[in-house]
């Protein structure tokens, strides 16, 4: 068997299909590696060994009988702990759900298990996916496997870290304002946020319903394409899942991109962008030009308003979604309260961390009488302006290329006391959530300190194919230059 660190979805499924290994042997090997390597990183919150072994045995018995194997047979994956898994502890990174055993499985996870993948465990994240560094986990922070003194990004830091560390072949995260793409960039892996409505949100613990997306992490663009393919599509359990056909995403990878028009928005290359990140992204853009793309300067004029718009809409939706955590039906209940109202307050005070309380407060304030028009409604109107920016840009170009993050991974603790500085880590990613377009991060180089740098590609609604094809060209060029 090849080294676990280098295994891809493609190579793993091939190894299982060609009987070079068994699913059970893979599961054993990955758990051994997790036990050896994960304690220093802290990416896993819960391992679901019984579930993994049962699934591996199912795959192996199909193989033994000579039956057809499912397309992703035996591929060990990890799931961000905001996606429910029946019979397995599901915490959303919060103490308020410390002992919650999910009664059903999220659609994205169920579909991937039907496709033959094996869920090894649930990954650490910022509490309720609220954060950009994973330091807001209710349990413990995750460390960046590329440099243990740095954050892996957030909120899907654990899911990015397991792929970077090779303690899972691929993983699922969720992206509400950049929570797949930003940690993907920080950890040097590929991370995709599909179009809003492309992947069902059923079983995704809600943070901000109009912004939440499920998205895959992988070592390669081909891997995230394969994962997307097997979880995308209409789900009657999510009324916002689109009734549109799914492409055979992986089959388009490697196709020429000659003649595609790539927009470079000037607002994403201004003040605050680290010079090394800028240089690496510009090198990536040159590679796209070499591949025959037409590079077009564009403007997304309302970009500077995206973060304030996002933090009003996301917190308003969160304050409503998190009202359900009240100590009555599931999760923590603080003892000793004499009245129902007191029980709610004590439970929520004890169960939620600082950032979650801060966002609930901000969102409740923005929705409260007298402030609704000035804040929430205003933000919804600016959201329309941001959407218009993208409509106008996509009338001229096929895709947009930007840095994924303004800087490489920062140090643990560096921004922990300054919420505003932390929010600005999402400056290049939040708009795609507000507008719903697909976005991917793909590694495009490293800083002098050997920290990964990510390049982001944004596409038209439901045009994941273009985003993946372009990302593959960047990936291929980087591999050629570092070979």
């Amino acid at each position, binding site marked *: 068997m090849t080294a676990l660190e280098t295994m891809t979805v493609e190579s793993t499924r091939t190894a299982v299909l060609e009987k070079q290994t068994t699913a059970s042997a893979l599961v054993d090997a990955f758990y051994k590696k997790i036990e050896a390597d994960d304690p220093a990183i802290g990416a896993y919150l819960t391992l679901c060994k019984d579930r993994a072994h049962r699934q591996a045995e199912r795959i192996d018995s199909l193989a033994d009988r000579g039956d057809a194997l499912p397309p992703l047979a035996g591929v060990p994956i990890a799931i961000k702990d905001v996606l429910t898994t029946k019979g397995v502890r599901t915490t959303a990174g919060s103490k308020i759900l410390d002992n919650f055993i999910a009664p059903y499985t999220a659609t994205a996870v169920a579909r991937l298990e039907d496709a033959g993948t094996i869920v090894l465990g649930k990954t650490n994240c910022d509490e309720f996916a609220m954060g950009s560094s994973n330091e807001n986990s209710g349990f413990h922070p995750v460390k960046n496997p590329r440099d243990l003194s740095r954050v892996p990004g957030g909120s899907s830091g654990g899911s990015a870290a397991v792929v970077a560390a090779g303690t899972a072949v691929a993983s699922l995260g969720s992206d509400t304002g950049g929570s797949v793409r930003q940690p993907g960039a920080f950890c040097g892996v590929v991370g995709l946020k599909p179009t809003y409505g492309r992947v069902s949100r059923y079983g995704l613990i809600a943070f901000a319903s109009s912004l939440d997306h499920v998205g895959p992490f992988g070592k390669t663009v081909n891997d995230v394409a394969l994962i997307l393919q097997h979880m995308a599509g209409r789900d009657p359990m999510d009324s916002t899942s689109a009734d549109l056909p799914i492409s055979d995403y992986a089959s388009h990878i490697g196709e020429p991109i000659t003649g595609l028009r790539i927009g470079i928005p000037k607002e994403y290359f201004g003040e605050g962008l680290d010079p090394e990140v800028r240089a690496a992204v510009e090198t990536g853009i040159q590679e796209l030009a070499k591949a025959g793309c037409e590079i077009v300067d564009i403007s997304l004029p309302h970009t500077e*308003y995206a973060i304030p718009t996002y933090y009003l809409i996301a917190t308003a939706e969160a304050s409503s979604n998190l009202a359900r955590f009240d100590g009555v039906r599931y999760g923590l209940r603080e003892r000793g309260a004499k009245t129902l109202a007191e029980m*709610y307050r004590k439970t929520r005070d004890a169960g939620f961390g600082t950032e979650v309380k801060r966002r609930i*407060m901000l969102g409740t304030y923005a929705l*409260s009488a007298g402030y609704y028009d000035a804040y929430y409604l205003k933000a919804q109107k600016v959201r329309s302006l941001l959407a218009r920016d993208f409509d106008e840009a996509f009338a001229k170009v096929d895709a947009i290329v930007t840095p994924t993050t303004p800087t490489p991974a920062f140090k643990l603790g560096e921004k922990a006391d300054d919420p505003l500085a932390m929010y600005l880590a999402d400056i290049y990613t939040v708009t795609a959530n507000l507008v719903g377009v697909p976005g991917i991060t793909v590694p495009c180089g490293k800083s002098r300190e050997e920290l990964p740098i990510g390049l982001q590609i944004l596409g038209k609604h439901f045009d994941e194919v273009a985003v993946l094809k372009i990302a593959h060209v960047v990936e291929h060029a980087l591999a050629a230059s570092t070979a």
Partner: protein
Amino acid sequence: MVSEKDVSYVADLAHLELTAEERVRMLKDLNSILGFIERLNELDTSKVEPMAQVTGRYSTKKDGDAFSYAMRADELRPSLPHQEAMQNAPQTDGTFFKVPKVIER
């Protein structure tokens, strides 16, 4: 500017108690974040429609029919069994969730 009174009022609405220390921090943070958010007022949005969600912007069908795919027949279907729905509850009597007394006699 958010005042201490506003913090208390909003905490009540959100069913949060917050320690004295947390209230001081919250006052500072909310004012800093809202100060940053103020810049939205630079934009004239008097003629702009609010956008609550993105799915209305695209669909295979148009206008009134756009979400017809999301409709289903109004008929009884099995749902989460009672026992499974109760299994995570902090306190039950086997049939109902139990909470501290709501009405004083």
